[in-house]
């Protein structure tokens, strides 16, 4: 039985305690050998990272900034000197250096990069994590937590795909608030029996979708509350049934003792138990001033440690080909350095990083010109839809998938984007 459907029967059935169904998975037989499942981890750089200082350096240009490029594990490819660990694992990563997107405002850029669509007042497009949750809805029977987890709330929602596919937002470090006490768990069956009665009546009274959405969310919340898969959120806890061990201090140290590092570690654990889409946010990239000092002292050490730990950990565990990685923000930053030694918003030529997922990694695709202000002559440019189409390819979601907006408008997967052909080989 699919627990996710637990309340649907209730709407017609009249048994007094149908909510026992909620708890059925506690005795359910856990699959011992589980099919290898594909997943995506999105590393969201909130504020818009200066990719010209990280992944597409311009030594010798007036826009070049303070950093020097270094070699990576892949001959001929260089990145910033303050990312030495990422350089070592670059064989599992790739750079798309010719992103050209049109939205250079945070809210609009965040929306565009997450959904592949520009904002439109009459429709809310689903963020790509919600698309994955929706597409995988029938294959996740042993998953008791939401299929889309957002660590640190990057924003965006399920739009016309419905609240059941909304991101489950947890704190930056992966912590869950208001987890149930034993007492609350014990009293849940009767409470839910009563709740169902009230919910069903209000749904029947025909007031639109919100009452039904409320029910779906409660369904997911109850599944979560009563599941031992919750251990994925706490690195110190183990859940042997799901193959989760408690993480050693060494592992925690490797990822970094900060929000981003911890978030990535939780993301890996979530992927291990079968969550197909996890987003981890790292904020503070809106560097209108003092960009070099902030990068050198704060952002790059964290980023270098976290990303390299994740990549090598996935490889060590044999998961690297099943987990596709995306690293991006709303936009890049102006090649020109402003009077406050900062860089402003810039969408017309910047870099996104991808990795894992069985892609042909260790590549650089596309290029910007010598000052970084435009896509180089002869180089193709890419849109967010192309990134998400590549992810869809890696996850096995058919590219011709079309969703229908609530108004009946067909919406192409990833806005009809094309996978980056060099990566899918």
């Amino acid at each position, binding site marked *: 039985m699919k627990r996710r459907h637990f309340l649907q029967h209730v709407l017609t059935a009249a048994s007094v305690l149908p909510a026992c169904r909620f708890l059925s998975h506690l005795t359910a037989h856990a699959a011992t050998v589980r099919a290898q499942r594909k997943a995506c981890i999105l590393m969201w750089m909130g*504020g818009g990272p200066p990719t010209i200082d990280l992944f597409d350096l311009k030594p010798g240009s007036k826009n070049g900034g303070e950093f020097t490029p270094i070699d990576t594990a892949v001959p001929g490819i260089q990145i910033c000197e303050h990312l030495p660990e990422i350089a070592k694992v670059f064989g599992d990563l790739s750079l798309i250096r010719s992103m050209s997107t049109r939205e250079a405002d945070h809210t609009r850029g965040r929306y565009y990069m997450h959904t592949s669509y520009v904002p439109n007042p009459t429709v809310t497009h689903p963020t790509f994590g919600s698309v994955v949750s929706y597409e995988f809805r029938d294959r996740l029977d042993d998953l008791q937590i939401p299929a889309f987890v957002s660590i640190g709330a990057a924003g965006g929602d399920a739009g016309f795909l419905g609240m059941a596919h909304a991101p*489950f937002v947890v704190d930056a470090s992966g912590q869950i608030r208001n987890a149930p006490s034993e007492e609350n768990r014990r009293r849940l069956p009767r409470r839910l029996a009563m709740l169902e009665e*009230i919910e069903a009546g209000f749904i029947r009274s025909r007031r639109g979708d919100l*009452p039904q959405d409320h029910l779906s*969310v409660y369904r997911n919340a109850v599944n979560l509350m009563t599941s031992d898969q919750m251990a994925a959120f706490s690195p110190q806890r183990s859940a042997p049934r799901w193959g989760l061990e408690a993480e050693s201090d060494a592992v925690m140290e490797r990822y970094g003792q900060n929000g981003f590092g911890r978030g990535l570690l939780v993301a890996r654990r979530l992927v291990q138990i079968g969550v197909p889409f996890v987003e981890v946010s790292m904020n503070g990239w809106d560097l209108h001033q003092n960009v070099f000092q902030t990068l050198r002292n704060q952002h790059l050490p964290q980023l270098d440690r976290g990303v390299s730990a994740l990549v090598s950990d996935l490889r060590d565990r044999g998961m690297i080909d099943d987990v596709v990685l995306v690293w991006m923000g709303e936009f890049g930053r102006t090649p020109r350095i402003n009077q406050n030694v900062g860089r402003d918003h810039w969408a017309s030529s910047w870099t996104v990083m991808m990795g894992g997922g069985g892609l042909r990694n260790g590549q650089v695709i596309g290029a910007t010109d010598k000052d970084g202000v435009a896509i180089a002559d002869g180089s193709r440019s890419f849109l967010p839809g192309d990134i998400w189409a590549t992810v869809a390819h890696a996850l096995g979601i058919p590219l011709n998938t079309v969703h229908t907006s609530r108004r009946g408008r067909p919406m192409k997967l990833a806005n009809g984007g094309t996978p980056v052909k060099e990566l899918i080989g």
Partner: protein
Amino acid sequence: MHMTGHRGIIRNMAVGMVLAAACGPGSEAADSAVDDSAVVAFIDAQIEQAWRDNEVRPSEQAPQAEWVRRVYLDLAGRIPRVAEIQEAFEDDEPRLRTALVNRLLESSDFVRHFTTIWTNECIGRATPRRVSRRGMEKFFREAFARNRPWNDVVYDLITAEGHFEENGAVNYILAQTQMRDDGVQLTAKTARLFLGVQIQCTQCHNHPFNDWQQKQFWELNSFFRQVRRIDHRRVDPDTGRMVDDYSEVVRRDFTGPVFFEKRSGLMQVAFPILGDERIDPDSEDRRGELGRLLTRSQGDAPPLIATALVNRMWAHFFGYGFTRPVDDMGPHNAPSHPDVLDRLAREFVASGYDVRRLIRWICSTRAYSLTSRFGRHNAADDPASGEMPLFSHMYVRAMTAEQLYDSLITATGAHQSVRGGRDAQRRQRRRWMQQFVRTFDNDENAETTTFNGTIPQALMLMNSELTARAVSAEPGSFLYDVLSRPGSDTERVQQLYLAALSRKATRAELSRMRKILRSSGPDGRVAAFQDLFWALLNSNEFILIH
């Protein structure tokens, strides 16, 4: 459609009564030339015409209980108490509806609710550093308590100077100048919040959709260049270290043009100009000049500060404004009911920017009186799916976190357990709010909330300390009172339904709930009632405004 006509007459009488009652304190500024019933009749006629044009038929008038609950949530920011529901039921229609709107507009709950809304708009829910939330709230409390004309409120906010607790209005500017960005954020926020236009991207280039030019952004920006914030520090006598003291806004010496850079790299100049109105660039009171310009009509159109507030206010009561989003008006985004928006804005100006009077008009419309239930005849009126709203039934919307908190307190008397009076309660509410606030930490000063109908919100309602307190049956609690009063279990169930959902249980609900209660046995009776109350407070019907 003679039914409509009949109802229309009744409602016009009702409007007359609202107006008669409206001539109390706070409406001296009202222009007697504004005919309230004519305003409402015009809106009704326009909206009804759109129904006919789109071949929908409106829903019925909302049952009294539904309407009373809604108007409490919209005006007082909380559900009604049991006694208030019973009191309301004693009145007859339509007297009840008009009298209740008037009573709520005079209530301290109205002032608190609108203070919360506008404080959140101006400084966000996560109070930025060096901003006094208390000061901002004090400013709005006074504004709404005295029903100050809206143009005066906006004038005070953009011209404010002084200490952040002595003149609370300065906190708007303090919150919008968190970065040393030459007032860029302040410019964009002012346009969005008070003029209803989004121009943030014109900082760097001409707007791709509306007709704002980059130059106009910097012209508006140049009004704010005489702002200077001073963040005072002092020595903490205990530690000997420097700590934050107060902040203030003072006038900065600035004349002449501002310079900005075109995409091409060319530098350009901008002078303080709004629309076609140019002020003397040597003026030492640019913000004052701006405040005065904001009330000038723009050609034929009413001033944007009026249109922007009308649009927001309409959205407050219906869940949707005339444009989507409400703060992105302009030729690129045609309003759903342009004539209603225009007329309301003009009358609002003519009334002397009388906020309560605007609210009375909106609450007196036929559209606001309708139920949220709909049928086949108007199922197509579904703005959630992207359709243009026709207002042929009330749209269901979720409570804000503040509305939920205050409603929980109302339903359960949980505040009785808070010691330390109103201030302590406010602090407690603010602490509770923080769990839902996520800031993006960027130059738009934006934040998001996890109080958005998703799992974190459900977990909070199911498991939090607040809920545990709400369903407590300790002496002094609401449940204790209900359970220790004489009466039948049926009456108790009804009390809980009234407290949480502002209505009585249906017969079917009663029999199901009694069955579940009976199965708990006499020992578990208290726990069973607690669980029923828990279920009511966790239900879709409780959290939704309908």
